[in-house]
């Protein structure tokens, strides 16, 4: 079956059609990477903190079964209702049912990459329920009918003029006004009305503490709190890997999260939701959606340590120059590229190849996920499972024949250099992607092996 979308390389090529815009995108994200560096350097024990975070998460992976049961028990004792969803479809169904019980047609949602992963918004829309995303960046992409392009900075790909136009069209701001301060104030007014009216609020979850049954939600804007504290029903949706063992472990993760994400010492709000407020219902939806399967993949289970800070995207030289949408997945960038093949190996077979394996992602990761090594390993798995392109496979087999037989290698190399010298057009043409924007190396008359034979005779 044909892919319904283009692959990363083609989407990235489209993105690169506008070079000044690529430069702008790259510089903006690089600036965030620099802020992250600066604040990391202000913590002398930074590397030890990363190690501790990684080890806490490793402990979680090894005890996830018991921690989930402990969390469920405590949450129930706290007065929450806990639901379990095996996959995205079940998650969406549970949420829909809760909304239908309340009879609401419109509700607010703060940032939750899980609900993006499950495609909750379009599902609810099909059932006549309008979701208002309340994170400013998410609201902007929602108005533009686009998915977020970054897990922390959803509209990092948008220029303020484009946002001004969107707001003019949807919120009635004056045409041509693209001042971020003005637009933010307009969104504040618009969304305050939604918060006040909304009887149900959905939030994501950053950390769920097994020991206490509480959930921590981090925002800068305060939108999760505005939604959840005003609503009669708070629905918190979380992947099962969000569990941490004890409350004191929040100290480690809250020190790392915002510093890694945006270079701030901590998000403005780190809200600890333990029990529903008087008269309120608190529902927690625990979602698997492939996570238990990933847990069983020894080479890839560490990807479940991710705390969704986005540092790997900000540092990734490929992400910065191809844009989040080129990954055609809810989670873009290096972390998206190691999570997505677990969800659908065929659909996302291109993503682990959208990397130079430079390794910068693994170095900034606050929980020390070996991202670039997993990219390499996914390439092997995808190829073994038969999802490599046929042309690529043929090329690799040919390469193998040449490289594993010294005689053939010697002849092929000599012939190749001779062809390049004698008929440069055979190599230097539009069919050769190397040559499109690069010259081929000038072929020398003799190889090193030939030179050595002549100059260092035995």
């Amino acid at each position: 079956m044909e892919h319904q979308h283009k692959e990363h390389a083609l989407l990235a090529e489209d993105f690169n059609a506008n070079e000044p815009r690529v430069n702008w995108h790259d510089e903006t994200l690089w600036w965030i990477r620099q802020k992250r560096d600066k604040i990391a350097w202000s913590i002398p024990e930074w590397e030890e903190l990363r190690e501790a975070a990684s080890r806490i998460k490793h402990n979680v992976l090894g005890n996830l079964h018991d921690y989930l049961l402990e969390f469920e028990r405590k949450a129930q004792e706290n007065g929450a209702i806990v639901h379990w969803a095996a996959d995205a479809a079940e998650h969406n169904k549970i949420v829909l049912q809760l909304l239908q019980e309340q009879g609401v047609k419109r509700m607010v949602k703060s940032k939750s990459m899980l609900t993006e992963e499950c495609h909750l918004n379009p599902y609810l829309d099909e059932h006549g329920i309008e979701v208002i995303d309340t994170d400013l960046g998410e609201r902007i992409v929602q108005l533009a009918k686009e998915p977020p392009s970054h897990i922390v900075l959803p509209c990092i790909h948008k220029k303020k003029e484009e946002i001004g136009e969107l707001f003019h069209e949807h919120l009635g701001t004056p045409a041509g006004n693209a001042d971020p301060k003005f637009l933010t104030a307009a969104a504040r007014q618009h969304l305050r009305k939604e918060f006040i009216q909304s009887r149900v609020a959905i939030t994501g979850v950053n950390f769920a503490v097994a020991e206490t049954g509480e959930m921590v939600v981090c925002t800068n804007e305060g939108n999760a709190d505005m939604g959840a504290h005003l609503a009669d029903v708070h629905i918190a949706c979380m992947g099962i890997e969000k569990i941490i063992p004890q409350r004191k472990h929040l100290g480690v993760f809250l020190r790392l999260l915002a510093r890694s994400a945006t270079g701030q010492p901590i998000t403005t709000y780190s809200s600890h939701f333990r029990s529903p407020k008087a008269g309120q219902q608190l529902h927690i939806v625990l979602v698997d959606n492939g996570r238990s399967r990933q847990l069983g993949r020894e080479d890839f289970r560490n990807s479940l340590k991710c705390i969704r800070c986005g540092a790997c995207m900000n540092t990734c030289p490929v992400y910065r120059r191809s844009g989040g949408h080129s990954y055609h997945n809810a989670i873009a960038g290096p972390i998206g590229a190691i999570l997505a093949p677990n969800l659908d190996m065929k659909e996302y077979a291109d993503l682990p190849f959208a990397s130079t394996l430079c390794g910068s992602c693994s170095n900034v990761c606050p929980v020390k996920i070996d991202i670039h090594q997993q990219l390499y390993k996914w390439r092997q798995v995808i190829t073994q499972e038969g999802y490599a392109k046929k042309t690529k496979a043929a090329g690799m087999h040919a390469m193998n024949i040449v490289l594993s037989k010294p005689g053939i290698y010697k002849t092929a190399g000599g012939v190749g250099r001779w062809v390049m010298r004698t008929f440069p057009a055979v190599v230097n043409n539009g069919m050769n992607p190397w040559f499109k924007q690069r010259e081929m190396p000038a072929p020398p008359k003799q190889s090193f092996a030939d030179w050595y034979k002549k100059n260092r005779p035995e």
Partner: protein
Amino acid sequence: MKVGLFIPCYIDQFYPQVGIATLSLLEKLGCDVVYPQGQTCCGQPMANSGFEHLTHGCNELFVNHFENFDYIVAPSGSCVLHIKDHLHVDGKEQAATHIRQRIYELAEFLTDVLKVDNLKAKFPHKVGVHQACHGQRGLGLAQMSELVAAPFSKPQQLLNMVEGLELIELKRADECCGFGGTFCVFEEAVSVKMGKDRIADHVNNGAEYITGNDVSCLMHLEGILRRQKSNVKVLHIAEILNSI
């Protein structure tokens, strides 16, 4: 000390002068160097493309050629890293392990094994160092900008011994150039853009030469420089360390 010289396939075919400079430098420093004829490739181009299962032939060849040396040295961080991480041969695991532990990229061999503290080299030019990722983040040839740790750089340590050479500072000290093996053709647009941006950083900071420990990155950068008709040239670090 018997040193086996590993000259990766594309250096052998396209950049023999890098192999020659490496050999001559090691000989000058008193090593007994042998280049085993018949060697081809470390297998990385296939492995990084998802075809590691096809690399058995390359691996066997590699072990046969290099199992009897005290050290194996190559002028390519990337190929060395691949061998270190992935060289395994059924029935010859002991030899493979010996090689994995004894293979060195040229610069680290000079600083860590030979403990070179002076070089009779002269290169009166402004030089930018391209820290190739596999050498830097994989082999640890230099400190990485992402980590909170003391700075060091083995290539720069050596370049500082070269008379007249002036190292330039870059805005982004260790960003990837976009070569990335087959990435350079399968993701042509991003690959070239990354290369152009790396070059601009060097050019804006006054580099006359761009050097590094990986010819693959340099080949990519050179391809773009030549297309831009730039005067800036690329040289492998061996060529500079060997220049008089």
